[in-house]
């Protein structure tokens, strides 16, 4: 048997960007472990549809410049932190000093703080299942640490805008760690955008730890260009009675991959995971989610919708694992898919593994096209066919878009959706 390919040496040389010593040490240690890491191939179950789109050429190992102008779409209301090619840009960031809340770039941490963080990085993700997160751990150049003291409440959403400038090939490795203390509360928006047109990779890891009763809303908006491979991972660990809400809205690219792993470790914890994916052209989008029900009395609710037009391909793989002691778990997973063309493909796979005997667990997955009877009904009222298509496609995801609790995100998503409709549905 041919051995699985491994990373080329270009990805293994040390990263130049300086950071506090404990983080440099961590990076180095993770880098050493990359040497034998087998890369995903089509025989790797969780990458079988996507491995062929993963382009890890030597050029991709180049660092992208960490200075330069950030784009204009950063004009968002509220608090914001700007990252350019994985490095925080303080002069483009704006947030007040807040009681009980610290927002710091990794670069700004003291050695003690960095040592504490280094101990905790990678603790939320199962790195065997999320191979590519390991590359980030070896190569991140900067990152954002957000710490909320007990009872601290962030009064407005915090926008973290990750821009990648693709004027030359290379990669960026954005990293976020959110430590939400007891009964703290935060709404966080991660927006991923790009400029330039050379092929680049964005490899992200975002980690969230929620102490008892913490309440975190995470919104993720994938808006990068057609030249950007995006391979992201989000790991979440939840203690007793905490609540995590995730809203992912993503538009396709040559490769978009997001792994979302949630561990419900304390009784009464609950998570709600919503996702909307829209693909067109030859785009490819792959969502893998895992919910680990570890403690009893936890709730999870997951709703993902994929819309695929033209020859694009969308994948949803949703795993729910209910551990033996997780009695009275309540898990509900729903994935609906809409194919807008005969050439589009959607693959969906619910995976349920249940070891407790007193649980409620529901799952459903459907794949369909726009309903002819509904279309006929709309056009029979004089509504143009294009408009009817838009109404029905929007109806498919409306419920999820409306649930996004930040108006600016809904508007940004709607603007991008309107572009998609213009490109997908012809004028009569």
């Amino acid at each position, binding site marked *: 048997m041919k051995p699985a390919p491994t990373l080329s040496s270009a990805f293994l040389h040390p990263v130049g960007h300086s950071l506090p010593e404990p983080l440099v040490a961590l990076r180095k240690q993770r880098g050493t472990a990359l040497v034998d890491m087998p890369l995903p191939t089509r025989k790797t179950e969780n990458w079988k549809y996507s491995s062929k789109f993963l382009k890890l050429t030597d050029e991709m190992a180049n660092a992208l410049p960490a200075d330069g102008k950030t784009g204009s779409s950063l004009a968002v209301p509220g608090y914001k932190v700007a990252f350019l090619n994985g490095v925080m840009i303080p002069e483009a960031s704006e947030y007040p000093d807040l009681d009980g809340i610290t927002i710091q770039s990794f670069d700004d941490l003291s050695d003690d703080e960095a040592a504490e963080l280094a101990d905790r990085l990678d603790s939320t993700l199962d790195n065997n299942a999320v191979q590519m997160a390991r590359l980030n751990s070896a190569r991140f150049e900067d990152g954002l640490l957000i710490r909320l003291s007990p009872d601290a409440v962030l009064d407005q959403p915090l926008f973290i805008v990750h821009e990648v400038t693709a004027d030359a090939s290379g990669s960026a490795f954005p990293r976020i760690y959110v430590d939400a203390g007891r009964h703290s509360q935060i709404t966080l928006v991660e927006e991923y955008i790009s400029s330039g047109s050379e092929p680049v990779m964005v490899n992200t890891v975002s980690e969230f730890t929620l102490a008892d009763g913490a309440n975190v809303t995470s919104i993720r908006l994938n808006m990068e260009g057609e030249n950007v491979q995006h391979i992201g991972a989000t790991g979440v660990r939840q203690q007793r009675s905490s609540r995590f809400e995730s809203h992912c809205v993503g538009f396709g690219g040559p490769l978009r991959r997001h792994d979302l792993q949630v561990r419900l470790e304390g009784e009464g914890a609950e998570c709600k995971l919503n996702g909307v994916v829209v693909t067109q052209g030859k785009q490819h989008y792959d969502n893998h989610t895992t919910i680990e029900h570890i403690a009893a009395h936890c709730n999870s609710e997951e709703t993902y919708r994929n819309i695929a037009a033209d020859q694009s391909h969308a994948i949803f793989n949703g795993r729910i694992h209910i551990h033996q002691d997780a009695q009275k778990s309540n898990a509900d997973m729903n994935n609906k898919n809409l194919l807008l063309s005969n050439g589009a493909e959607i693959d969906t796979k619910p995976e349920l593994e249940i070891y407790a005997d007193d649980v409620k667990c529901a799952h459903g997955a459907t794949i369909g096209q726009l309903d002819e009877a509904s279309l006929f009904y709309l056009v029979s*009222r004089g509504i143009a066919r294009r408009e009817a298509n838009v109404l029905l496609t929007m109806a498919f995801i409306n419920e999820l878009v409306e649930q996004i609790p930040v108006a600016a995100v809904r508007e940004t998503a709607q603007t991008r959706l309107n572009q998609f409709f213009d490109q997908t549905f012809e004028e009569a």
Partner: protein
Amino acid sequence: MLSIKNLHASVEDKEILKGINLEIKAGEVHAIMGPNGSGKSTLSQVLAGNEAFEVTSGEITLNGENLLDLETEERAREGIFLAFQYPVEIPGVSNLQFLRTAVNAMRTHRGEPEMNAAEFMKLAKEVSKQVDLDPAFLKRGVNEGFSGGEKKRNEIMQALLLQPKLAILDETDSGLDIDALQVVSNGVNALRAEDRAILMVTHYQRLLNHIVPDYVHVLAGGKIVKSGGRELALELEERGYGWLGIKDEETADSSANGSGN
């Protein structure tokens, strides 16, 4: 206004309409009755332009214009309105959004300015009262979770909003209790006008007590086999279809007929 000549139509290569001839003038109300499977619903769907039905020969003109050349939405803008026998539920599209989009499509076609949300809301509330629908329905998904009667009232509400030239009512009375029938009938009677024609397709005579037609036609085996005045409906009620030499084929054609609904 509407002229149908020797209309033949098929669904999945099965001929349902086998030579329909019908003339309807502005201001008239016509009723088409007939047993199940006679082609009543097919005729409604063909008039509205449902592509599941293929017109194999014959012609349909509306005020002299060839209807068969027009897409469904163009027919609607020219004034054809079909009240569906089974209105479709469309969760995720609010009734209000649907109705306003439709009304504005018509207004744009007529060269009138679009109505803004506030103007339309006012109009929609008035019309919903006319068919006794709680304005709260406007915020729900199109027909979503509506009872049968509510769906039918929503159809009539749409007719009142869109002010068609020809309103085709496909079994609008089916499934209605007597109160709802009264509301729906009042709505339809409010539509009667000198410049508008109404074509009612119905299985039962009951509706015709509330909406009195000028002409009644009996459709059987894909053809109009008898036409007359209002008294024909009463005679059918009394004597059934047998005296016309028609068997009420409860099952024979109903699957093909039902597929278009």
